[in-house]
């Protein structure tokens, strides 16, 4: 396959995923609804935490990047669920016997997830700004959306790996729970200094903490390169590991 043909194959897979949004609009609802409910709910429930000494910003500003990453995680995991469905129904076998190389198929799947993750992000941002979330600045917004797309891709790689391993939609809870755990075991609820017990240690070493801080910086203060590069580096690392696993799964999949 030539380079141009590979790009066309990736575009075709992205178009197929986009068609799914138009033809089954209900399928996008959980990815949009769940993080929005969590954002509004947790803001109401734990909102008073911002009265604690050392809390740097209003709680809704603190929480919105968490919900954005959650939305990306759910949307990316949905790619894994859709792939499992395609495997169950035999459509994926037809894709595998096509001349498209495995990396091209994987690229089509995960890039569609990156684009789809912008849907819950857009909805959440509208809701957030409507209830008074601070405008992160254009640079802050661009970094946040970049990080959201990156997390959507990470989640899609994770979902794809599991879909190829279990070949069943029943693995869906594992795909979603994995991403939820990855996002929540960070400074999701409070700054590192205010976290207690095991979470303080886990959040310190969880790479998503850095990714979250990069997405959060514009909402709680100014954007700096110093707060950005660790997040981008961790995102690149996660992408390298998980896309490697997904590709390994693809290569091991026989028709």
């Amino acid at each position: 396959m030539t380079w141009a043909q590979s790009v066309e194959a990736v575009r075709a897979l992205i178009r197929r995923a986009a068609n799914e949004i138009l033809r089954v609009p209900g399928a996008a609802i959980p990815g949009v609804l769940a993080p929005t409910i969590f954002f509004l709910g947790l803001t109401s429930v734990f909102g008073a935490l911002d009265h604690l000494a050392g809390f740097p910003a209003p709680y809704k500003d603190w929480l919105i990047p968490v919900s954005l990453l959650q939305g990306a995680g759910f949307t990316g995991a949905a790619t894994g669920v859709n792939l499992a469905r395609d495997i169950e129904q035999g459509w994926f076998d037809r894709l595998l016997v096509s001349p498209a190389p495995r990396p091209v198929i994987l690229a089509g799947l995960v890039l569609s997830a990156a684009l789809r993750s912008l849907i819950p992000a857009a909805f959440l941002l509208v809701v957030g700004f409507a209830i008074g979330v601070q405008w992160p600045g254009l640079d802050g917004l661009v970094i946040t959306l970049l990080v959201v797309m990156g997390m959507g891709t990470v989640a899609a790689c994770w979902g794809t790996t599991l879909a190829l391993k279990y070949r069943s939609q029943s693995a869906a809870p594992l795909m979603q729970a994995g991403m939820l755990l990855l996002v929540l075991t960070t400074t999701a609820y409070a700054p590192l200094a205010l976290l207690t017990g095991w979470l303080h240690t886990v959040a310190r070493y969880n790479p998503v903490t850095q990714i979250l801080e990069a997405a959060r910086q514009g909402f709680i203060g100014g954007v700096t390169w110093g707060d950005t590069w660790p997040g981008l580096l961790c995102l690149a690392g996660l992408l390298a590991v998980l896309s490697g696993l997904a590709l390994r799964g693809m290569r091991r999949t026989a028709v």
Partner: protein
Amino acid sequence: MTGTDLRVIVALGARSVKQTFRRPQLLAPIVVFPSILLAIQTAGAGQAVNLPGFPPVNSFLDFMLAGAMIQSTLLAGNSGGIALAVDIEMGFTDRLLAAPISRFGMVLGRLAGTAALSALAGIWFLVIGLIFGAHINEGVPGAIVMMLLVTLSGLAFGGIGAAVALRTGRASVVQGLFPLVFVILFLSSAFFPQDLLTGPAATIARYNPLSFIVEGIRDPVISSLSWEVFGKAIGSLVLVGAIGIALSSLALRRRLRMGG
């Protein structure tokens, strides 16, 4: 209620419990998900106990234990509804309808299973709470009151799940209630003291029956048993249970009239 009815309820309840243990996707929302959230929220928002107005507690885990239990019972009700809808989709309910057993026993059997699962989940949270340092102020009698309220909660919320399953007959619709469970939870004092909630949630939580139920479960942990709090919890459970059973009866009657 005859002896046969009782045997049917026990048999269907036992089937419901076994079914849940055989399907991890039904068990996970009842035990795994609330346990993960309990662990993360306890450590993530643990400093909340230092906020002015937070009731005196030994630790945030003491406060959160009731929230995790009630979350689990709500999700057990939802899972019970999903399992009932699957039975309808697969034709198992039609076979039951053709059997010489009471219609009431059929629904009550499913609810008994949900109540039993809630009780088991309650014991699970009590045990992990005690392992991780929770302190039940009222000791063993307090734990018994908690288990009683958790079991009755499963019965009451199971009625709502069963009503939706009987009305729609579709598992996907009952599964769609999952986000609603969290809306109800966030609009109550399940995870935070009522006086420290912000926005509209603060007002809604004041009247949400779930707040009264969760306060009833929490009372023996962080305070002392009070008849007033217990009475409000039981009253709220009776209200939710009555709504669930009434809606289930209506939905079952409609299903029988329409021919399953």
